[in-house]
């Protein structure tokens, strides 16, 4: 089910603006996107079949409003901004789904306001760090390297759909501007090592939590799946074969159902 509304939201005493894609029916669900920016993909369609999905752009990544991140200085500010965003949308308690960078933000939100987050789904979240485990900084990879790290089958249909850029030079330029800028803005909250102290706060999370990871993730090691499951008191992890950093699309045959069952069960 695609989104059917784009809502403008202003938070942080009017200093921070963003847009929220809204679609679906049912109880609210906040979706937090990864560093490449917000895309309403088939996985969000699947969530929208059982929830009303609210998918905000990371402030500063809405096309045409590149400075909207400036008033937010760090992860603490950003977490509170997302809390205010829920207020502005009139949402009390909500399910939260976050992918990669968005997973870290979802975990931060659930640690900051434990009672507000009813269920938490983390797809290959960043945010914990153990020396020696593989991590590839996505901003330092070429498109080919990114594809090889993020997808179990870098030449398969899922990767091709995700990584194919427009052929028209003007559209290509605009796409590259949007992706580059989104990745740039996100660096404020995770660079150079994706550890902003979540390890110290993660014990505060009370929401039942499902962690989903691809066994072949070349961006960030799936070894962290077990850590999230262990450190979150109601957490469990599913590490899937034939998937890497985008398991919800790479294993579309199982992940949407798994998430639906977890959220509605």
């Amino acid at each position, binding site marked *: 089910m695609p989104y059917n509304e784009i809502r403008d939201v202003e938070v942080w005493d009017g200093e921070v603006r963003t847009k929220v894609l809204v679609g679906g029916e049912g109880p609210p669900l906040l979706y937090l996107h990864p560093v490449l920016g917000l895309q309403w993909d088939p996985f969000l369609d699947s969530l929208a079949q059982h929830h009303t999905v609210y998918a905000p752009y990371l402030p500063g990544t809405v096309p045409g409003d590149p400075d909207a991140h400036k008033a937010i200085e760090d992860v603490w500010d950003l977490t509170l901004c997302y809390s205010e965003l829920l207020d502005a949308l009139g949402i009390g308690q909500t399910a939260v789904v976050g992918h990669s960078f968005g997973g870290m933000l979802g975990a931060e939100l659930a640690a900051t306001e434990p009672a507000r987050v009813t269920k938490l789904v983390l797809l290959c979240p960043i945010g914990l760090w153990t020396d020696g485990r593989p991590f590839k900084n996505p901003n330092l990879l*070429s498109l080919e390297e990114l594809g090889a790290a993020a997808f179990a089958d870098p030449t398969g249909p899922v990767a091709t759909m995700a990584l194919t850029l427009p052929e028209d030079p003007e559209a290509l330029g605009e796409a590259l*501007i949007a992706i580059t800028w989104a990745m740039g803005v996100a660096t404020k909250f995770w660079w*150079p090592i994706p550890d902003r102290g979540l390890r110290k706060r993660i014990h505060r999370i009370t929401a039942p939590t499902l962690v989903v990871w691809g066994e072949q993730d070349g961006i960030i090691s799936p070894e962290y799946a077990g850590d999230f499951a262990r450190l979150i008191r109601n957490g469990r992890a599913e590490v899937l074969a034939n998937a890497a950093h985008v398991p919800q699309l790479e294993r579309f045959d199982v992940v949407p159902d798994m998430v639906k069952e977890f959220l509605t069960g």
Partner: protein
Amino acid sequence: MFHLMPHRELPDDFSRRYKSVWVTPPWHELVPDPARVGDYYNWTLDELIYGAEMGFDGICVNEHHQNAYGFMPNPNVMGSVLARATNHLDVAIVQMGSTLPTTQPAIRVAEEYAMLDCISGGRLVAGMPLGTPMDANQVMGIPPIEQRDRYAEAHELILRAWQSKEVFAFNGRWNQLPFVNSWPRPIQQPHPPVWIPGLGSTSTWRFAAQHDHSYCMLSFFGSQVGKRIMDGFWEFSDAEGLDRNPYRAGFAQIVCVAETDAEAERLFAEHVLYFFDKCLHVPDHWWGAPGYQDYESLSRGFRSGTTMKMLEVISNFKKFSYKELVDRDIVIAGSPATVRDKLVGAVKDLRIGNLMILQQIGSMPHELTKDSIGLFCTEVLPKLRDIWDDDGWENHWWPKRLRNQRLA
């Protein structure tokens, strides 16, 4: 005269064997004997001092980290030696320079530059670079999106630290200092001239314009590609209502001089190719890691086609032959007459007051470097000095005591 202080003896298969000259090259494999690096540093200092003795108006070093391309992690260590060794000469000590966002707290730059100005008797040019993405983001861990804000904060702090008569508190985001009271202060008043290096970002032009600093285009793409960028700079400058004083702008150019064009090719080709093959061996996309460019420059670059053109140049120049590099003026090399004609043309075409010449290129050995410096200073330099004299422009971005000193 600008020096990078490169590794001069990288293995032939360096760029095939290693991912990058920057950030990750393995020291223990590439430097079997650290004493040899002592030679590099001392040759570099000697070449710069020789350049000063032979007539260069300024000698210049810069800051980079974790690389074999040019490894002076603190340019002020070099600058201090250069200042002391040239106290008998009317030569500027051009530091291009301490990287503002990665020097913490930034009063370190104010202090070290003030020391250099004192040691040199007021001959410092204070370069204030933003830092490359490899240095600032990868090595030093600065989030790319914060780099320019950190730069602006550091710049404000340094200028105030030099000039304030009172002790002041500086409540910055990255520099929180309750008692700023720099010791020493620079000799030059109100402060040493400030030069800002850049690669064509609009925001850097704007910053230089706002603060009335001189802008230096530091690339290795030569005057032909540089023309496109400097035209943009002068249009921007006009729009800001600034005068067309050529000394508002600097430009870096690789220059090799021998007795004849053929001799230049024979002597310098291998060293020039070493530089482009090995010293610039960096994954292309590292130069444009997301967040490093501000939004205005990012979008302008893609929409105007400049970014694609730059990427094309970057991906091509490694494959260029010596002749192609020279034909494109990426390297200006040849007899004194050839070099002179090309440089006079480039200076006028780009409207450059501060020309920064690189003479030690890649693997170029010490004696050959000195030969090239000597020929440049005796046969070429005298023809460049007076280019803008007839127009009556004054170089406000040059140490006062050195202006009009070396016209002979």
